C-alpha cells in the first residue's frame, strides 16, 4: 500500500503509469485494470493521473454521469482518499504493490511516494472536483 502524491502540473499524459501498474499488478498490459488512470484532454490543456478506486458515487452527484457523460472512474478516488493540497493531489493506492511501478516508469516525476498517510480526509464537494478536473492547468 502506497500513499502517492500526484503532481498534475508535471504530468504530460503519456499513460505509461497505467501500463506499468497493470503489467506489474494485474499481470497484463491493460489500462482498464490499472489502479491509476490518466485523464487526458490535449485540446483542453488538461492531463493528469489519478488513482482509481471502487466507484460508489450516486449518479446524480457524479459530475460525469450526472451530465450524461460516462464516468472515467476517477472522481471517486478524489472523494474517497485524496487531500487536495497546493498544486498536488495526495492519494492512497490500496494495492499491495512492492514496486510502485507507476512511480518508477513516470518520465515526468509526476507521481511520488509520500512517507506518511495524510490525516483525516477533507470534505471535498463534487463541484470542486469537477472544476479542478477541468481547470487545473499548467499556468
Amino acid at each position, binding site marked *: 500500500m502506497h500513499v502517492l502524491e500526484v503532481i498534475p502540473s508535471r504530468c*504530460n*499524459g*503519456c*499513460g*505509461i503509469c497505467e*501500463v*506499468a501498474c*497493470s*503489467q*506489474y499488478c*494485474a*499481470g*497484463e*498490459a*491493460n*489500462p*482498464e*485494470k490499472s489502479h491509476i*488512470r490518466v485523464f*487526458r484532454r*490535449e*485540446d*483542453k*490543456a488538461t*492531463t493528469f493521473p489519478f488513482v482509481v478506486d471502487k466507484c460508489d458515487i450516486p449518479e446524480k452527484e457524479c459530475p460525469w454521469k450526472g451530465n450524461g*457523460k*460516462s*464516468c*472515467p472512474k476517477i472522481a471517486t478516488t478524489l472523494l474517497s482518499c485524496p487531500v487536495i493540497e497546493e498544486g498536488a493531489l495526495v492519494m492512497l493506492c490500496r494495492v499491495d504493490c512492492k514496486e510502485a*511501478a507507476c512511480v*518508477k*516508469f513516470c*518520465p*515526468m516525476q509526476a507521481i511520488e511516494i509520500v512517507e506518511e498517510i495524510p490525516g483525516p480526509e477533507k470534505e471535498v464537494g463534487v463541484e470542486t472536483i469537477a472544476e479542478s478536473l477541468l481547470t487545473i*492547468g*499548467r*499556468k
Partner: protein
Amino acid sequence: MSQGWSGQILRVDLSKMVSSREDVMPYTRSFIGGRSINVKMMYDEVAPKISPFDPANKLYFGPGVLTGTLTPGAARMKVTSMSPNGLLANSGIGGWIGREIRYAGYDNLVIEGKADKPVYLYIHDDSIEFKDASHIWSKDTYETQQIIREELGGPVVAMCIGTGGENLVSFSSIQTETGSAAGRGGFGAVMGSKNLKAIAVRGTKGIKIARLEEFNRTCAEFHKIIRESPGCEAMVAQGDRGVIDEAYNSGFLVIGNWEDVDWLEAGRFGGNDEFFDQYTVFVGGCFGCPSYHMNVFNIPGMGMGKEKCVGWVSLGSSVWNNDRMTMVEAQYLCNKYGLDIVSTGNIIGFLMELYNRGIITEKDTDGIAMKRGNRDAIISAIHKIGTQEGFGGIFRDGVLKAARMIGKGAEDCAMHVKGLEMQPYEVRAYKSQALTTAVASRDTIEGHSDIDYRWIVDGEEMEKWAEELYGSKAAAFPTSYEKKALMDWDHENRHAVVDMLGVCKWHIPWFITSSLKMPAKLFSLATGVDTSEEEFLIAAQRTLTLERAFNVIKGIRRKDDTLPKRLFETAAPGGVFKGQRLEKEKFDRMLDEYYNLRGWDGNGVPKKVTFEKFGLSSEWEVFKNLAKEGE
C-alpha cells in the same frame, strides 16, 4: 489465448456493413506484425490494377506486436494502402490509437468496401458499430474527435479525417489528437473515398505477456537506458525544434523550394525564444514516451495543439517564414483540415517560387500574392486547399499534376518523387538521404539513417558508428558515395523491423541506438517465441521485397527511382556544403549497389531468386505474370 499478439485480425466491410475476425497467427511466422502483416495482406488481396479510390482498395492498420506494452515508445501504428499516386505506401501514426486497437483485441485492422453514406466506426472490444457520420461530415478533425468522445463517452480514442480527406485531396492525413497523424501517403483521401469519417476505439481486453517478470525488468532497463542517453536529454530539453538548429547547421534544412541553403533567418528557428515561454503548456509526446519532445501550446484565439518537427520546416523555412505564430497557426490548420504538413508546405513553397519567377501572378491565386514568407499567402493557401475552393482545387491531385496544368515551366519546380511531394530534406550533399528518397516505396523518412545527418554535430561518434556497422568511416561523411547503398539498405531493414513491433523510430534506429537487440529480446519475452535480430532482418527484407513487387506491378522501374533534376543540375548555393549537387554517374552506381543488395535486377525488379530466398515462391508466381503487364 495468444501471448504478445492479441490473436485476431478485424476485417470490416463498409459496403456490406459487416465485420469478421481472422486468426493472425498464420501470418506471424514470416511477417511478425504491424506493417509487415499489412503488406502481406495487401499483396494478397488488393488487385494492383484498380484505382486508389476504388472500393476494392483497402486500408490496413497495423499496430506492432509491442504496441501498448511497457516497451518505451510503443505507441506506433502503420497504415498501409494504395496511395492516391497509385503505389503501395505506409504511413505511421502515434498518439494513443494504436494501443487502443491492441487493447480491443486486434493485431491488425482491415477496412474494405465503401459505405453508402458517411459513417464512423466504433470498435469496442468485440462490438463493432457502424454509426451515422452525417452530423460530423465537413467538421474539422479536432471538433470531430470531440463530438465522438462526447457521443460515446469514456476514454475513447479516435482517428479521423478532415475536409481534406473528404474532398479526396491526394495528400490528406488521418489525424488523432491534435498533432499526431498518418500524414504522408494521402490515406485520408482513401478513407474519404470510403465515406469513412472516423474510427473510434475503446479496448479493455489488454495484452498478455508470455514471460511477464523478465519482460517488466527488461522494459525498466530499456527505459533507463533511453532516459540516461544524451539523445534523450537533447530531445527533452529542446523539443522538436532542436532538430531545426541541427539541420540548419548541417546544411540539411530546405529553404524555399530547394532554392537556398543558408537563408540567415532560418538559423534562428531552432532555439528557445519568448514564444515557447509564453505559450507552451507542457511538453508531451505519444503513449509511453521517455523522450517526450513535442510542445503543446495554448494560444489565445487558436486554442490547444501540438507541434511536430516537420511543421517548423515545411511551414517555416520551406515557405520562407520566420514568424513562429504563423508556423503554429499553419500547423493547426493543416491538422484541422487533415492535410499532410509536408506536402502542403511543399506546395506553398512551389507557389512562392512560381510567383517569384513570374510564372504566376496574383490573378492565378485568387488575388493573393504568393510572396515568399507572406503570412496571408501561407494561411490562405491552406484554407483554399483544405476546402478545395478557388486555386486550392488545382492541387487536389498534388504538386506534379498541378504543375502540368499550370505549364510555363512549372513542372521543373515541382519537387516530387514518384508523384509524391518530397520530404523537406536538402539532399544534394547527403548522398544516402538522396538514395533512400529515390528508391523508397513512399519517401525517405521510412528508412533513412541519421548517421550522416548527425555527422556535422557529432562527427567522432558517428564515424565510430559507421565503422562498426558498415566497416568504413566514409559512410558517415555526407558527401561521400561510399557505403551509402549499404547504409540505406541496412537502415530501411531496421525501420521495417521497428514497424513490425510498433516502437518509435526516434529511439531505434535513430537517436538512441541502431541496435535491434533490445526490441528483439522484448519481442521474444512478450510472445514466448525466441527470435533473433537476424531473423527480424530477414523478415524485413521479405516485407520490402513484397512492397517493391507491388509497385513494380504498378509500373515502377529504375527510371522512377530518381529525384527532381534540380538536385542534379543546380549546386547548393551556400551553407557548409556549398557547391554540392548529385552527380548522375555516381548516383547510378549507388543505385546499382542498392539493387544488388536488395536482390533486384538492374531495372529495379526483384529477381526470382530473391523471392525464393525469402520464402516467397507463391508470391513470385503472381508477380511474374503481373509484372509484365506493368512494363
